[in-house]
């Protein structure tokens, strides 16, 4: 098999040798993004909830960018066959879809259920006896187990 043949794109099944220069660029970008996410984690913009959401989205956005770089260039998904791409998109797409269940967690307090008002974010009615135990707000404030 000659080297020239390896670089042709004559069909869906032919593979591609990723040039070393592209691999080096990917590696440098990954290190820069890692430094960026460490730097961004030192910011404290304010105590409001939306700053926390922003900081989390920023950290995850950088992580997703790094993941896309690894998948596209190191794993060669950019040059993969359509069948491989179907599996790649299917796998990570499923992972993303799973997180839609936070639509449920996030909206529970909008439609509180009687008895669960003080602990809306949990699915379990942990303090049905709130009248007897008014101090308890969530499991985190219970006395520690030994």
């Amino acid at each position, binding site marked *: *098999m000659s*080297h020239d*043949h*390896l670089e042709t794109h004559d*069909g869906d*099944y*032919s*593979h591609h*040798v*990723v040039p*070393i220069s592209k*691999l*080096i660029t*990917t*590696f440098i970008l*990954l290190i820069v993004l*890692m430094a960026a*996410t*460490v730097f*961004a*984690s030192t*910011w*404290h913009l304010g*105590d409001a909830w939306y700053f*926390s959401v922003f*900081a989390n989205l920023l*950290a*995850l956005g*950088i*992580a997703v960018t*790094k*993941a896309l770089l*690894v*998948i596209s*260039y*190191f*794993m*060669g998904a950019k040059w*993969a*066959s359509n*069948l*491989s791409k179907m*599996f*790649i998109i299917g*796998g990570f797409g*499923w*992972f993303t879809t*799973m*997180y839609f*269940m*936070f639509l449920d*967690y996030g909206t529970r307090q909008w439609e509180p259920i009687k008895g669960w008002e003080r602990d809306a*974010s*949990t699915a379990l009615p942990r303090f049905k006896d709130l009248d007897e135990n008014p101090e308890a707000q*969530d499991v*985190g*404030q*219970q006395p*520690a*187990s030994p």
Partner: protein
Amino acid sequence: MAHVAKKIPLGEPGAVFEQYEDIHQQNDSYVVGMWAFLVTEVMFFGALFLMYSIYRWKYQPYFWEVHHELDWRLGALNTTILLASSFSMALAVHFAQRTQKTKQLMCLGTTVLCAFGFLVVKGIEWSAKWEHHHIPGPNFHWTEATVPPNVAQLFFSLYFAMTGLHGVHVVVGIIVISVLAILVAKDNVMVKGDYIPTELIGLYWHFVDLVWIFLFPLFYLIPR
């Protein structure tokens, strides 16, 4: 090229089994198979990531407090080591495709060395947790008054479950890459003149890197 490849007898490099049109289709079915396996790995880790997310959602301020117990510098060092190992693995695949055996072996060796380096750093971190009694269980000890011990224990349970499972994958990676390097060095018929074994093991190793890319910000860099 395809009609030439078909004439190569089975067992020789570049041989095509009869169910395939040509060598490209055969190679692609290997890659697809590996990705199918990696999809199951996404589901495996996905359950843990979801569990983490739910408790982080519920206990964000506490998780922020507890995460200071982890040293972000060691986490960043491990991220660098793992990214470097992924880079050298990608180079190994490149040299395997170019049938440059010596360079391929050097890259595989670098990858294994980086993987060992990763485990050494992880060992340093875990032994510190052991000394501070931060391993979840009956001996778990927590003195920080601002965080309930149960929530601190929850954080460390997630930390050990997720980095532990990831660590198991690193150990498996070391074994698989070492076996591959030995086979390549001995010109074994399974790997001689065929880049596909290196490509598939490379995909696995990059996936291990991918998991860490998410573990690092989720455990070491929790924002306030």
